[in-house]
């Protein structure tokens, strides 16, 4: 087929991009070459709209072994151990085909982690759906949850935490972000940089089929009315093969035969081979007749662009082929020598003894387009003028009931009970806590992980929102007693070609970067997902942050459940009663304007570090950070989990009960302290200039707020646990 501009545009390339290709090659590309360019130059693979801004992220730190740019980030957790982790989006495919889309998202991120030599030890996910009224939501939710469970459960990796939200901005574009943590010895990390000439290039794993062709291009475009037609671009997952691939790769990695290894993810064989060659500053030659194919008569174009799952590309030391093949034979997986490294700095493909493509590697990578897109600055919205005398008309109990049963607050056990969260025998904090926690097998250490996003705050003011999510993950880690180490981010936005969406992206990144820098909490990996939009409407800006922290001794882990009657409860951090953009404002007042709560990084850092200090001194019996829904929501969850009540006394601030109980001021935690330690705890808080309120005493069965208001734990539990189960029944 003769290539022309029209065909290039059908491949998702812009007219000037096509002209650039012709100029770089000094000729018109053939169809296979065009396919390769379109796969490498799409937004998903090239980061052409985001690269220029991602450079501003804070990525360095003492604990960082590998920052962004590899298959996943790596951080040091002492004693020669390291954690490999990353989050990635699988939004577009999950909307088209929820089960397979979500499943292969989980499979893809696990592959990114074990490609680096790490055994996956925990999965997390952040999933966002349209309004519960939307007729598609229920089926999408069911399909996505089944898909995540279907893949992760079969792999035998526990799913330890997650986040689910509902918002009408996701009606036409759901978000499915999957995160994996793996454990590796620091001196056994594998990278994707090829090295040496004439080294064998090996293909292992599943056979190549026609599934997923152009998946990455599909993920780089907005949806329209014909989106259902794109179903064939969704890959089909086979977790069983991936489990075998995991075991086989780890077995091979125990030896010393691998030079470089790269999984075939987005844009399959194309991006994996080019990535390895580019990083090694080498050429690569592939005989496509050697590629194991599932279907007959596959063309070079199809073989190069297939996104069939569970495949890896390895550059091996010479002479190690037989030894490696034995391992893959044992696990019943395909193994084929398909090419070699060369000094030409070209990627050259042969099929039926003819050269079918020859492209300089640098034209695909370094010369790929990079755009400084136009973007619009946002302004901090004006505060709402709320008539506070109205607040006296609300009954606290009625408000609490509405908030606890809100889809974005209610218990998600219907979801996480479908995920195996205990396999591997090291899960010491299950989903539903502030962070999931797994022990580092056979040691006293444990790793905590959390995933968060606050699209509403980001939408109201992107810089503040970006900062806030980073801080929320930081608080979630500290609340379980873990010292925060680093984050991974998944940046889900609308079209970068829209100035407002692009502005949201740029400013969220700015907020994330500021917070990371201040907290010494770097970004080590991540992914950008643009074009989460249908026709002209994009999703609310939804950067998702995955945070990872370390507990030196897992026995010091904290949970949020109230422990003992008679213990005192303190609220750490200052409550100003910020109602704008709170759940109270949206659900009860139906007010959607106003600024999000301010993020004071000094207070975040000071409050968090002081709490960690108290935890390490063993003064804290339970802890929970205060976020969506405010303080009374947080207290309710501590009561439900601990099956205990609390006698509350609101401090005599000027602000009303509603503002104190449902305001969403940042940097706050609730802590439970034994009365014998109270004096010393207060002493330490004072010494560190941390504001605190003594707010109550743990009692048996109720939340007692004042003479008028009393709510039993059973009532709280029924408010909180019934909505999702009823909705999905």
């Amino acid at each position: 087929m003769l290539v022309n501009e029209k065909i290039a545009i059908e491949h998702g390339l812009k007219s000037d991009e096509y002209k650039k290709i012709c100029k770089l090659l000094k000729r018109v590309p053939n169809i296979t070459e065009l396919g390769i360019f379109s796969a490498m130059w799409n937004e998903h693979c090239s980061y052409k709209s985001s690269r220029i801004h991602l450079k501003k992220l804070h990525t360095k730190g003492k604990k960082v072994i590998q920052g962004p740019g590899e298959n996943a980030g790596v951080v040091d957790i002492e004693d020669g151990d390291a954690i490999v982790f990353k989050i990635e989006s699988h939004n577009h495919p999950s909307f088209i085909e929820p089960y397979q889309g979500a499943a292969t998202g989980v499979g893809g991120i696990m592959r990114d982690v074990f490609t680096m030599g790490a055994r996956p030890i925990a999965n997390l996910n952040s999933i966002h759906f349209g309004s519960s009224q939307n007729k598609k939501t229920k089926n999408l939710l069911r399909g996505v949850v089944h898909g995540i469970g279907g893949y992760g459960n079969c792999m035998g990796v526990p799913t330890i935490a997650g986040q689910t939200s509902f918002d009408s901005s996701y009606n036409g574009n759901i978000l499915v972000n999957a995160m994996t943590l793996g454990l590796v010895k620091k001196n056994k990390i594998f990278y994707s940089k090829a090295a040496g000439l004439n080294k064998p290039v090996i293909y292992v794993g599943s056979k190549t089929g026609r599934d997923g062709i152009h998946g990455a291009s599909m993920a780089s475009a907005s949806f329209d009315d014909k989106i259902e037609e794109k179903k064939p671009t969704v890959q089909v997952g086979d977790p069983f093969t991936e489990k075998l691939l995991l075991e086989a790769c780890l077995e091979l990695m125990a030896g010393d035969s691998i030079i470089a290894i790269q999984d075939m993810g987005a844009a399959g064989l194309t991006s994996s081979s080019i990535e390895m060659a580019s990083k090694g500053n080498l050429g690569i030659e592939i005989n496509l007749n050697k590629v194991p194919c599932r279907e007959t008569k596959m063309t070079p174009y199809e073989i190069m662009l297939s996104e069939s799952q569970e495949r890896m590309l390895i550059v091996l030391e010479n002479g190690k082929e037989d030894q490696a093949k034995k391992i893959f034979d044992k696990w019943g997986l395909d193994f084929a020598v398909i090419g070699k490294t060369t000094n030409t700095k070209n990627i050259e493909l042969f099929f039926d003894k003819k050269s079918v493509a020859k492209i300089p590697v640098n034209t695909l990578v370094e010369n790929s387009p990079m755009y400084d897109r136009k973007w619009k600055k946002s302004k901090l919205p004006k505060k709402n003028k709320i008539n506070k005398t109205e607040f006296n008309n609300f009954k606290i109990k009625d408000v609490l009931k509405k908030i606890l049963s809100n889809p974005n607050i209610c218990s998600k056990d219907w979801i996480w009970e479908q995920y195996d969260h205990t396999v591997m025998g090291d899960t010491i904090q299950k989903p539903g806590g502030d962070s999931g926690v797994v022990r580092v097998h056979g040691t006293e250490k444990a790793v905590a992980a959390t995933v968060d996003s606050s699209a509403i705050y980001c939408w109201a003011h992107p810089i503040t929102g970006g900062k806030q999510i980073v801080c929320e993950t930081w608080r979630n880690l500290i609340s379980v007693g873990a010292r925060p180490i680093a984050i991974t981010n998944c940046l889900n936005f609308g079209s970068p070609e829209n100035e407002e969406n692009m502005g949201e992206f740029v400013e969220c990144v700015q907020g994330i970067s500021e917070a990371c820098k201040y907290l010494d909490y770097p970004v080590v990996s991540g992914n950008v997902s643009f074009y989460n939009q249908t026709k002209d409407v994009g999703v609310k800006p939804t950067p998702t942050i995955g945070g990872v922290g370390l507990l030196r001794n897992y026995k010091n882990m904290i949970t949020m459940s109230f422990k003992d009657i008679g213990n005192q409860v303190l609220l750490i951090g200052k409550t100003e009663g910020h109602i704008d953009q709170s759940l109270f404002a949206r659900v009860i007042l139906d007010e959607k304007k106003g600024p999000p709560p301010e993020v004071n990084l000094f207070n975040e850092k000071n409050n968090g570090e002081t709490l960690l200090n108290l935890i390490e001194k063993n003064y804290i019996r339970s802890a929970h950070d205060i976020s969506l829904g405010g303080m009374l929501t947080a207290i309710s969850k501590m009561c439900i989990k601990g099956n205990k009540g609390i006698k509350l006394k609101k401090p005599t601030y000027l602000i009303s009960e509603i503002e104190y109980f449902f305001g969403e001021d940042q940097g706050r935690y609730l802590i439970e302290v034994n009365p014998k330690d109270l004096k010393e705890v207060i002493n330490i808080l004072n010494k560190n200039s941390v504001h605190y309120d003594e707010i109550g005493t743990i009692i048996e069965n109720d939340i007692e707020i004042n003479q008028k208001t009393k709510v039993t734990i059973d009532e709280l539990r029924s408010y909180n646990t019934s909505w999702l189960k009823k909705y999905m029944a």
Partner: protein
Amino acid sequence: MKSSVITFPGSNCDRDMDVALTKFGFKNKMVWHDDQELPKSDLIVLPGGFSYGDYLRCGSMASKSKIMHSVINFAKSGGLVMGICNGFQILVEAGLVPGVLLRNKYLQFICKNVHVKVDNKENTFFKNLDKQVLEFHIAHNEGNYFCTNDQLKEIEDNNQIAIYYCDQNGNTNDQINPNGSIKNIAGIFNKEKNVLGMMPHPERMIDESLSGEDGSIFFKNLLNNIK
């Protein structure tokens, strides 16, 4: 005491079982499904997971593995065999225990703590256990035990039901049945009671930091019974 844990392609609780057996004093060996011979063992365990991806039918392909000939012979000569979760499904497919395991009643994977009632202590697995109700953990998609009426009668006549799903006080009823199993059956013996298949995972309940510790009680008791 010596134990062996079989690893099938797709097993994923094999390591957890190894950790548990070793912790309570077994000398455990891992055995590959494609091996012919079993090491000398006092106990063989078929672990949980997704052998062969649960494709075709859960446990079906694994039940035809090379090693299973030896496992079947070992069981028929009176050796102790325990199958957990996918291991239970393999035992059913191999014909070592009666019945079948269907998809859970609500068509969902379930991962949570459950209570089980131990009714039958005249066997090596539960003899001398001083508790009637144990808190175990389940994680499965196909744990809905089913058999014909004739089979059920025979099972009951032979006292082959090992454990039932129950509440914390030992009451068995439909509300606490997590997967729709007939008679709330969570585990079952062969006629001779040297083969036990059960859905719950005792190996996930072996220290205070995990979901509970009743697994420790089970393993300690089992070791004492074998000694």
